[in-house]
């Protein structure tokens, strides 16, 4: 039950993009087409889960064991950056089909603040490993949901008559605002 609450709250109530403002860059950048949005969502799901497991283990058995928690930011970003590289290399070797689907998105993920954000949040919320993984999967699904819904809307926006100054990013942000308003309806669900 506890795990279901973590997932539901991560996807709908505290949606990582629309309520917590993490991962806005890819949200605005790669949401022009539905297919790229889905690819990015898959890549984030993959990396976010692995990164949360690895950073949780490092925090518990290395940083806390040695009492050097203040190095958290430096260590986490380095771990995530090298992890992304490693995932890229392994994927290329083991599953070329998955690599060709996710490949272009992987380098972008290092600077996706959602990954580092979720890794730090998992520590801040004192989750155990299993709760942390659930939290990461929930957030990744929430990210994918927001991205895919938004991409669907933007495909329609392309053929709309938008005032000149609002074309492109400004109108997309206003639409994201309305989408965030809709997601606020989930508040109090759990």
């Amino acid at each position: 039950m506890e795990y279901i609450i973590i997932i539901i709250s991560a996807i709908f109530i505290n949606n990582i993009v629309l309520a917590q403002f993490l991962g806005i860059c890819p949200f605005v950048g790669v949401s022009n087409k539905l297919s790229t949005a889905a690819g990015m969502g898959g890549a984030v799901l993959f990396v976010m889960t692995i990164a949360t497991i690895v950073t949780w283990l490092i925090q518990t058995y290395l940083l806390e064991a040695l009492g050097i928690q203040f190095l958290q930011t430096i260590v986490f970003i380095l771990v995530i950056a090298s992890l992304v590289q490693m995932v890229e290399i392994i994927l290329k070797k083991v599953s070329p089909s998955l690599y060709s689907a996710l490949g272009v998105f992987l380098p972008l993920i290092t600077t996706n603040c959602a990954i580092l954000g979720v890794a730090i949040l998992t520590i801040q919320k004192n989750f155990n490993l299993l709760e942390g993984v659930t939290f990461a999967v929930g957030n990744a699904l929430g990210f994918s949901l927001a991205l895919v819904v938004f991409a669907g809307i933007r495909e329609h926006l392309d053929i709309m008559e938008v005032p000149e100054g609002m074309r492109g990013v400004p109108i997309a942000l206003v639409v994201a605002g309305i989408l965030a308003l809709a997601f606020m309806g989930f508040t109090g669900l759990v």
Partner: protein
Amino acid sequence: MNNLQNFTKGLIKENPVLVLLLGLCPTLGVTTSAINGLGMGLATTFVLVMSNLVVSLIKNLIPDKVRIPSFIVIIASFVTIVELLMQAYLPALFEQLGLFIPLIVVNCIVLGRAEAFASKNNTLSSLLDGLGMGLGFAFALTLLGAVRELLGSGALFSIKLIPGDLMLVFVLAPGAFIALGYLIALSRKLNK
């Protein structure tokens, strides 16, 4: 390009938020009030100036292949310094900005300037570039924070100007997107 231009281009013409659309996560996340926007902007400015300075000083020592990881370590070190300093001297602001302080590490502006400018230019122009970009970022965040605070709670820098309840939605998440959308449209109009 002369030094004055290096400094001023970040403020308006190449404003990182309003024109280049970089660093949108903290822009949306912390701007519930003008003072939060200003605090975040200045913290980022410090990191930007220091990382530009260090990168431009040691750019010839860093092998080309490991330059991005090296930049990240430099940036993360300064972020940690800011984090510890704020925790010690500005605990209230630190609490408000929360997660977004460690996330300065992944702010595309900081790494972007290190890679695109500081690794190719001399120390003085890198310093000025960092300062200009940082202050441009701070300006955009303060402006967005002021708009949201004024429309949402009728106050400016925590001083109540309009009595009563206003459009609360602007302090909440949806208002951030909508206000930023209109601000970008406005800056496009003015920049033309």
